[in-house]
């Protein structure tokens, strides 16, 4: 308590004496104060590097995520197979590396796309109001009220490639990855839409919007240039948390055997037969789950740190 009060006062008194901080510097400064968020950012950065450099790691170690050696099932940790061998005789370490790529990609793509949908729905509802607003918000509320996990399980279990529009998209061996992303996008834009709508409603009647209208800016221009910069910070925070949620959901569905289908590895489907492996090779249950936990907790801390840094009204601790 004592130290944080002190820095607060220092900030206050230093500013008038000549040097002015930019908005970015202020936000960065506040973010740096949140130690756990920094650690989280570092961990996320590390796993992103692993995901991008997966092929490089495979080359360097000479390991192949789908090469099977059925005779050495459940092999122990060794110099060649750092984290042992799984039930189908594949190297666990390199599967974890490629699993990182799949798990992070599913989460980032679905969170990014749902952010775009949320922004579009939220601004349209908030800016135009009236019937459009009413219809969009009823839809949003209805989707938010649904039992999300049972619905995800049913959607993951059915063969959605039988639907006419999706049959082209869902071909080839990566179809389960695309299917996961599609399902997550449909069910994760609602919170952002509501956040954006309420932010837009709050600024809609303010003078700077009025002045933009008078000076002849189009509706699209007003939404993109005047409103979006003002609603972005709550959206960024909630997207960060969304990435963590998507990782958790993907892992849960893949664990149940309904998500990413083998041989494509993901952190979740490496735990698919965990209940059988638990006696033979407990490390193969512990490690993928721990990576999921580590990354999700990092995203949650990052979201918390961003919240503190971006919200000007946040109570300084």
């Amino acid at each position, binding site marked *: *308590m004592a130290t*944080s009060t002190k820095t607060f006062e220092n900030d206050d008194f230093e500013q008038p004496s000549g040097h002015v901080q930019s908005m970015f510097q202020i936000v960065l400064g506040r973010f740096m104060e949140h130690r*756990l968020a920094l650690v989280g950012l570092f961990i996320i950065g590390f796993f992103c590097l692993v995901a991008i450099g997966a092929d490089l790691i495979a080359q360097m170690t000479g390991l192949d995520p789908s090469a099977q050696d059925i005779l050495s099932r459940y092999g122990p940790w060794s110099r060649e197979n750092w984290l042992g061998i799984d039930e189908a005789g594949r190297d666990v370490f390199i599967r974890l590396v490629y699993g990182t790529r799949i798990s992070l990609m599913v989460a980032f793509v679905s969170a990014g796309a749902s952010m775009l949908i949320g922004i579009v729905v939220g601004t349209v509802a908030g800016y135009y109001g009236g019937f459009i607003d009413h219809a969009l918000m*009823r839809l949003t*509320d*209805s989707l938010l*009220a*649904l*039992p*999300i*996990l*049972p619905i995800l*399980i*049913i*959607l993951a*279990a*059915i*063969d*959605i490639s*039988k*639907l006419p529009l999706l049959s082209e998209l869902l071909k080839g061996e990566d179809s389960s990855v695309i299917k996961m992303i599609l399902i997550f996008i449909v069910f994760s834009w609602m919170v952002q839409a509501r956040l954006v709508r309420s932010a837009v409603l709050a600024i809609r009647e303010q003078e700077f919007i009025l002045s933009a209208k008078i000076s002849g800016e189009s509706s699209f221009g007003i939404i993109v240039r005047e409103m979006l910069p003002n609603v972005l910070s709550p959206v960024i925070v909630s997207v960060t948390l969304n990435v*963590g949620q998507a990782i*958790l959901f993907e*892992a*849960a569905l893949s*664990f*149940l*055997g309904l998500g990413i289908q083998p041989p494509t590895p993901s952190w979740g489907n490496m*735990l698919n037969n*965990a*209940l059988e492996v*638990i*006696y033979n090779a*407990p490390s193969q*249950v*512990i490690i993928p*789950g*721990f990576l*999921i*936990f580590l990354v*999700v*907790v990092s*995203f*949650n*801390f990052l979201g*918390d740190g961003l919240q503190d840094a971006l919200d000007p009204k946040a109570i300084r*601790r």
Partner: protein
Amino acid sequence: MTAYIIRRLLQTVIVLFALSFITYGLMGLMPGDPLDIACAANPRCTPENLDLMKKQLGLDRPIYERYGKWIFAFVQGDLGYSRTYRQPVTTILLPRLLNTMILGATVILVSLLIAIPIGVLTSLKANSKFDYIVNFFAFSGISAPSFWLGLMLIIVFSVFFKWLPAGGVETIGVEATQGTWAYLLDRAKYLVLPTATLASLTIAGWIRYTRASMLETMRLDFIRTARAKGLAWHHVVTRHGLRNALLPVVTVVALEFPRIASGAVITETVFSYQGVGKLMFDSIIGNDFNVAMCSFIITACMVLVMNLVADICYAYLDPRISFK
């Protein structure tokens, strides 16, 4: 207020019907049509036979007609017949529902008993070491994948220490041989690990919520008044602070029921706990459409009704909410 409740009720019913219609349609997209499977197993079954069978069962009718028939029977309490269990769905579903409710109630009770005292303590000692440690664990609880947490608990308590059973609901034959008390004790033993798994998430959320709510309340003027007139500190905290701070917590608790009902699918599957969630998962995997549909609708019903209750609680407790 009455108008608000009626409108929300109507909305819930509409969502429920829309949801059941869509799922009814989607169920047809599941891989493995029961008739196709039955036909493939029988060498004397020709395509003509298959068409005739589909006609007799009414499967050639348009989807809305089939749905109308199904929902009409469902509302009257006829849930159909299970293909894999060879029993009426009602017979299977009711004991499962009871099991899930026992689990849910235990989770809520345990979470309340742990989360609220800790939440209050952290708010009183905000920014202390204790506060930071609790905050760290709360974040961990929110972030841990529940199935993995369940697996870890199994590894530690069932595989390593062998203290608790790894899965199931009860040891077969305990009630018959050792009496009711032994039976209850046995059931409780099976509840410990699933409860711990589900409760960790709930506790983590509630601690953070109670702490925030309490911090906000203790800053208000009437607390200063209470202290100024010389009330004992614990009176100020419990009678003035906690009472007001717990109001918003009530709705969060109400909102937790649906989350437990839907989150139980995974925990029940990990622990083979015979509840509605496990039933739903098994029937989806086993192409048992009737059971899958009914257990899904029951879960959705619970979730939507609890959401409704939470909203009404909130509107009732906070007069600033407009009922429009």
